[in-house]
């Protein structure tokens, strides 16, 4: 009997405690002098850059401590979600990529509205990038980089296969890929283990095939009824049938080690890869001597004959940093600090990428990235990556359905039906 009483008392106390824990969402964080900062660079100059920025901020703001945590990219979203179960102990400043994942956080009231808190220079210098962090006319993040996608290729391998001009149409691309294959070169590196690199091929084909209206109703209302989605899938099937992807692409990861798809490109084991503008930075860490790949170059995703998409439209991501709704003023100060022109220039150098701040883009020297910037200046729009826009639920289902199709486990129709059933979960 005694045991029963004790057990009942403990259980009651526990219930009350857990209820109390649920109810403290309104409280603000106790300690404002320590900022917990989460980013996704785990190696090389990128990690060093954030450590340096944190140190510089601490120096400029005596008494404030920045706790930097670098989290592997693929683990980032899951860890963040777990940490934000209790926002009062979650990170203060963390990386975001927009789309539905960010919207979910906003809906749960966990992101701070920064509209009136960011410097005016951010609003002018990062005007285009800021749209990706703006929801319902409110700004929820400070962008650091703009990463449009496209095809990254090895100039030497293209030459070796006798290709002189980079392809501008889909048919050209198919022809060139075959030509590379015939020359005994793996034409396209594909990191299908992470699913999204394979899915990017489908997104881009859809961007070219679908009218802007059909594209918007798909990512907005999850309506994939337009014929262009089937056409895009069929085009990808055509490419897949040529057998131009690297062997064993299903278990090839995107960025980890020399056997990853980026590693294959870095070590001249494959001729090209469809990737975002972070590619030069990733490839740099994977070359044998860890220096920039000398013959890396870029061309935009080719146009598709009869496609209804906008000419020259780009797709890409904007990386920005959001602030926990419960965080103090120092966290806001910190995001303004990382957006300064000087820090943006250093960011561009450290990550070999395109900074969000337009004036800071002058420091980009990489010829491939310069090409990307020239396409970016010409592009009428830059769409968000489709899986980001759709959210992890439907986005992941889309990505894996595309991988299924590429390995012959599913059809084009399955892609659409998988997305529908994912929306029910």
């Amino acid at each position, binding site marked *: 009997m005694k045991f029963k009483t004790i057990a009942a008392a403990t259980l009651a106390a526990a219930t009350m405690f857990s209820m109390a824990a649920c109810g403290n969402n309104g409280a603000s964080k106790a300690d404002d002098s320590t900022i917990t900062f989460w980013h996704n660079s785990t190696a090389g100059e990128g990690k060093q850059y954030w450590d340096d920025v944190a140190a510089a901020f601490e120096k400029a703001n005596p008494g404030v401590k920045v706790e930097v945590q670098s989290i592997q990219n693929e683990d980032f979203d899951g860890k963040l979600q777990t940490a934000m179960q209790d926002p009062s102990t979650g990170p203060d400043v963390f990386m975001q990529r927009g789309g539905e994942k960010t919207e979910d956080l906003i809906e749960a*009231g966990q992101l701070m509205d920064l509209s009136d808190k960011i410097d005016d220079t951010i609003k002018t210098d990062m005007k285009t990038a800021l749209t990706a962090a703006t929801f319902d006319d409110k700004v929820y993040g400070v962008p650091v980089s703009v990463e449009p996608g496209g095809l990254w290729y090895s100039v030497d391998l293209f030459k070796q296969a006798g290709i002189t001009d980079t392809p501008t149409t889909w048919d050209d691309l198919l022809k060139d890929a075959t030509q590379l294959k015939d020359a005994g070169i793996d034409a396209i590196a594909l990191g299908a283990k992470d699913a999204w690199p394979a899915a990017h091929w489908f997104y881009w084909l859809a961007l070219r095939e679908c009218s802007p209206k059909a594209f918007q109703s798909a990512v907005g209302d999850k309506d994939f009824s337009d014929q262009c989605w089937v056409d895009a899938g069929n085009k990808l099937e055509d490419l897949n049938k040529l057998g131009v992807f690297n062997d064993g692409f299903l278990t090839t990861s995107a960025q980890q080690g020399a056997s990853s798809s980026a590693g294959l490109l870095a070590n001249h084991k494959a001729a090209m890869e469809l990737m975002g503008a972070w590619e030069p930075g990733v490839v740099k860490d994977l070359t044998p001597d860890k220096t920039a790949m000398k013959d890396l170059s870029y061309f935009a995703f080719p146009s598709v004959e009869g496609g209804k998409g906008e000419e020259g439209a780009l797709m890409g991501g904007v990386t920005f940093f959001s602030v926990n709704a419960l965080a103090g003023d120092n966290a806001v100060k910190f995001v303004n600090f990382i957006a300064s022109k000087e820090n943006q220039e250093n960011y561009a150098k450290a990550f070999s990428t395109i900074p969000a701040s337009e004036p800071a883009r002058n420091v980009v020297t990489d010829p491939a990235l310069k090409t990307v910037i020239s396409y970016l200046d010409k592009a009428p729009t830059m769409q968000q990556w489709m899986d980001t826009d759709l959210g992890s639920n439907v986005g992941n289902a889309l990505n894996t359905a595309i991988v299924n199709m590429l390995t012959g486990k599913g059809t084009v129709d399955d892609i659409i039906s998988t997305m529908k059933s994912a929306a029910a979960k």
Partner: protein
Amino acid sequence: MSASMDAAITARPLDEDKNAQDKKKASARSAKVRNGFEITVLSAPAIIVFVFFVIVPIILGAYYGLYKWKGFGSPSTTGTFVGLQNYITALKDPTFQSAIGHTFLVLIGSLILQGPLSILFALLLNQKFKGRALIRTLIFVPYVVSEVIVGTGWSLLLQKAGAINALLEKMHLAGIDWIANPKYAIWTLLVIITWKYIGFAVILMLAGMQSIPEELYEAAKVDGAGFWQMQKDITLPLLAPTIRIWAFLSMIGSLQLFDLVYIIWGQYVADTAGVSTMATYMVREGRIAGNYGYGSAVALIMFIISLIVALTYQHFVLNRDLDGALTDAKSEKKRKKKLMKEQQMAKEAIAIADSEVK
């Protein structure tokens, strides 16, 4: 007779006896209290841990499973109540069905592959020969190595352009795509699992074999039994309790299989490669996709499936090893009664046979 004795006892009107009885009662009561107190204090830590880390999560999981919930805030405020819809969706999802299928394939495959192999290895290692300690260690090493290292190592070795295929090529054999081809991937996984966990099975079997009395073998030898006959008629029957426990542990391990698959095939493509398990499905559709409500429902289904498997196995196979440990005295008595009845019937049968012979 007994009635008169009772009468004799009650008839004795002795005060001191009564006193003693009272004392006895009191001390019995205090012993009982102390006993209860000891049980409470000693078991409290275990019970608290069990309640908070097993029972409460199960209840919370069942509760979350009733919501369509993205994991931010609490389900009642940011989620939508959907009743049992999550459970229905999961059970109807062909991806989950195939994940269950793969899990049970691994479960059965592990038993079939590891069982006989581990007994053979244990038989070998139970003999005296030079370098026995070394081989014993070598067989146990994979079990000690972390799953992450095993997964990374094997996935590098087994790539299409990996070391194994390079070796095969030198032997003029054409290598296949061991892990990326959905046709072979699950068999590759089974081989890796066998390699990884057989050491544990061998150690268990070896321990079981060493507890078999040497005299039995000596007696069998005197009777002229050969090596294999001895193994069949002495080792196997006496090893049976060990085999049953090992099979139980192996089954539980298979039902929870996650890490190796997750390391080799990553977060997304386990299903494409045909190696997804219930746990990888739960992580992909629950945590990575951000469907915390749905994921909780899948977790509960997993729990129920595991519970059914475990209870069924315990009831039909393990109960004879667990007499007095996990089963209560009642069922033990029941079984003894049954046994006695059987013996009685056998005796009767013998008697009948005897009389018929006469």
